[in-house]
């Protein structure tokens, strides 16, 4: 009995040592050594940058020069399509000559201008192609929403300012039949016609005035702008001087 047990044990040992070993498990993934820096790869088609690095919200902003009414005045505007831009009615009022230039200094040929009756808004058609066009938001902004205004305040260089929607109220200037937006984004003469963007870069309003201390800007909501753009006909020609 003892002899048989010993023989079995030796056989098991020898057989286990000579038998085929199972495959080794795969190596674990390499472990990062030291600091590594995550590199963000831009996704094609999602960037809003142009080849020159300007944002779309900047590229659509145009500077409007009104030569008429005995002087030269400036305002802002923005492209809503390849050859249509939006600005304020009072920006183009009385213009004998209207000149439009882009963020990079290109001068555009202006064809016609039409104005709306319901609000201080105007449509200007250009013969030159505009560099880019904005996307209009589906709904008006809510109080508390952050906004950004891009334009040419004081007729100076292209500038961006941020703020928050404060409230809606009746137009103190009686230029708009609908309620207007009051924001705490600063605005000065020359800011009129500037697009007001939400966080996603969609237009939610058009700046048309500022408070006397320039600490509040007043804007026409995008719903009114949509109403204007949906119109099939406008008052041809520029409105008279104020």
């Amino acid at each position, binding site marked *: 009995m003892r002899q048989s047990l010993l023989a079995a044990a030796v056989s098991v040992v020898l057989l286990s*040592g000579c038998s085929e070993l199972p495959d080794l498990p795969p190596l674990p993934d390499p472990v990062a*050594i030291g600091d590594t*820096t995550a590199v963000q790869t831009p996704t094609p088609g999602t960037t809003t940058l142009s080849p*020159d690095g300007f944002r779309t919200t900047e590229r659509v902003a145009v500077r409007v020069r009104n030569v008429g009414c005995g*002087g*030269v005045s400036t305002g802002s505007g923005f492209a809503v399509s390849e050859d249509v831009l939006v600005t304020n009615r009072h920006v183009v009022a009385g213009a004998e000559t209207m000149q439009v230039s882009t963020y990079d*200094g290109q001068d555009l040929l202006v064809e016609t201008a039409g104005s709306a009756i319901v609000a201080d808004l105007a449509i200007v058609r250009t013969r030159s192609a505009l560099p880019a066009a904005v996307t209009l938001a589906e709904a008006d902004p809510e109080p508390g929403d952050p906004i950004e205004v891009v334009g040419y305040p004081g007729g100076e260089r292209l500038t961006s300012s941020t703020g928050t929607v404060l409230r809606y109220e009746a137009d103190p200037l009686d230029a708009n039949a609908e309620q207007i937006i009051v924001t705490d984004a600063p605005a000065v003469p020359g800011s009129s016609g500037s697009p007001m963007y939400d966080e996603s870069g969609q237009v939610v309003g058009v700046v048309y005035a500022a408070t006397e201390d320039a600490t509040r800007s007043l804007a026409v909501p995008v719903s009114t702008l949509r109403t204007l753009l949906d119109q099939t006909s406008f008052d041809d020609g520029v409105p008279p001087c104020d």
Partner: protein
Amino acid sequence: MTQRRPNDDTEPPYETRALENLEREVDVSLRRADDAIAGRGVRRRGPRWLPITAVLLGLLLIAAAALATYLWRTTDEWMAESDRLEPVATELAAERDSLSGELDQAQRDLAATEEQLREAQDRITTLANEKAQTADEREVARLVAGDVVGVANQLEVCVRGQDQLITALEDIEAFDPASVSAFARDVSDACAQALEGSEEIKRQLGIE
């Protein structure tokens, strides 16, 4: 030997039972003595768990030996695999260091390019603004030039009217005094307009 009959229900007496026990012990002693005479040893039976434990320990020993052999072979395989992978790991580490250096350089280049882009954008915006301001001034100058032309025309009217008025005054008797007075007022108005226009131009040009 005392035998009990089948139908005998009475208990045998104590002496009988003792005698029977004694007889059985004698029989056992005799069998053991016979066995000893026949050379067969008397075996005492040990505890029953002892062989089972021995078998289990034997199996455990076999399993441990098998495991040790397997681990020994596995260790050899791993050592061989480690020797094979070590130069690969070294090469990969060197490649990683190289790529890390290239990445750092690329990031520095990217940061420099982004800075250049920002400067270029700022320059573009500045130049666009300067161009717009120049165009504004050009348009203002064009308006002023138009006003200057208007003032020049008014001055021409003024001067020509004054010449005619001087000529009329030199031969005043040949003219109707009322007409001369009215003409003089028209000339004065024209000169006043020219003077007003001139002052407006000076104001626009910032000339005191």
